[in-house]
């Protein structure tokens, strides 16, 4: 079972993006689950969410405490200590940033650091500052845990062609830096 934690800010579309991943995995015959952040939702406040993906039924009904993947939609959250709480050694960090992965000083000894400028892509492709669909493209490329063709179809149905273009561009532009053994 894969455990993933999303970090972002209210208004960045974490919940709808995670729904698309769950939907894609279920459509492909697998099991997935998303537990949203239970807080007071305000635009701009830090939010998070918990995603699980498995080939078998998922019984757990709790938040994720030992993620092997962190998906970070707002890079200012990299400096918040809680962002890396419980992060597994050998895991992967996917960040929405304009910086190179080599520039990022991160705690938690990730095996892979992936970067993509989802905010820029979203602004150019959709004219809106909502990076969630671009992050879905990067997520599919980096993890392979959800079927890319199904995810693209679901983005197109839910958000239209501009967002599909954003996801495709992020899929091709995401950069991955290897720092150690995966899941060491």
């Amino acid at each position, binding site marked *: 079972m894969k455990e993933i934690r999303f970090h972002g800010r209210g208004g960045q579309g974490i919940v709808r993006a995670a*729904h698309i991943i769950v939907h894609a995995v279920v*459509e492909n015959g697998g099991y997935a*689950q998303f537990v949203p952040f239970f807080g007071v939702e305000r635009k701009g406040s830090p939010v998070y969410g918990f995603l699980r993906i498995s080939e078998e039924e*998922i019984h*757990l009904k*709790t938040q994720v*405490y030992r993620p092997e993947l962190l998906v970070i939609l707002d890079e200012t959250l990299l400096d918040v200590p809680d962002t890396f709480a419980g992060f597994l050694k050998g895991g992967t960090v996917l960040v929405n940033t304009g910086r190179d992965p080599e520039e990022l000083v991160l705690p938690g000894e990730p095996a892979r650091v992936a970067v993509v400028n989802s905010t820029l892509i979203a602004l150019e492709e959709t004219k809106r500052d909502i990076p969630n669909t671009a992050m879905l493209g990067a997520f599919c490329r980096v993890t392979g845990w959800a079927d890319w063709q199904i995810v693209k179809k679901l983005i197109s149905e839910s958000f239209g062609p501009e967002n599909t273009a954003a996801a495709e561009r992020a899929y091709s532009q995401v950069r991955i830096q290897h720092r150690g053994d995966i899941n060491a």
Partner: protein
Amino acid sequence: MKALAITGNISAALGCSLARPDLIAAYPITPQSSVVEHLALLIAEGKLDSRIVHVESEHSAMSVLSGASLAGGRTFTATSSQGLALMYEPYFRVSTLRLPVIMPIACREMTSPSSIWCGQQDAMSVREAGWIQVYVENNQEILDMVIQGYKLAEDPDILLPMNICYDGFYLSHLVERVELPEQSQVDSFLPPFKQYDAKLDPDDPMAVDPLTEGSILMQYRMSHLAAMKRALTRVEEIDREYAQVFGRSYGGLVEGYRMEDAEIALVTIGSMTGTAREAIDQARSNGVRAGLVKVRFMRPFPAEALRNILAGVKAWAVVDRSVSFGWNCGPLFVETEAAICGSDLARNSSYFSAIGGLGGTDITLDLLLGLLKKVTGNKRQNGKMETVWLDENFLGRVE
């Protein structure tokens, strides 16, 4: 059969839609709101042929349903917490009028202090208002129990309203795989509702609910309790009938998980049960003979089923997501203890109440593993032990 990825709230709405209700009353409250919102959407899109009334309060929601149910309609609404509190007067009357209304409760704390988050205090607080109450573990069970609920509630031998209680946010907003039954399957499983006795019919007028003297009221209560008792059997039968048509069984009143040779056990209710299954599996893999008892029905209370399934266990704990203010423990514990009173189990095992997950806090896998450790440590003792709080310091105290 189609597999969907949906929240618990949408699952409740789709279960309702498959049951083809005549009338839905809609009033929003967190975390339930998307149940009635989704039903309004289905009606607006022409996918559901039901009437929906956008009432001005929960009190009106339940009042509208009581009228519609008396007139022979299949009815539905959903609520949480303060909304349930506001509808208490017609809520009680619907059960004592023996009207088979179905109402999910997306469980949430009661104020004060102000909270919108998960806790079963709302549903537990109304367990003496005469409704049948089932507490469910996952989104599939929400949908299945809405459908089974109509079958049970509308049975001429039962005629009682029913709550499908599911944890706010931990299920209401959790997205997971749910298998959607075919409409034709549900239609054949669920016959149309027919109002037999008290009914509002202009062609056949009768007085309903006049001022009633005590000796007759007493007969009302005896009849109500007898229907609750019959429901104990009917729940099990409907679970088997449902399994035959839809391929899913939940074990009826209680479900035992790995209880066959269990020495220690957790008794759980609601979504924490899923996490507890993992905790039991981990304990088993470490050689601990642990098992799980999932209590599904709080009303009627499955006293005999609980006594039977716990018989032979040496140490156990009941985990509640709400409190009983009079007993310094949880309400499921109070009732379980009443159920085992005088039995060998009460004499020959140790047991205690554990309270956790209040106000939206998480009942984590680590907390339940710690709880199992504490229960295992009590194996050589007998009788009731002190209540345990699964708070942030619990794991430190267990070590």
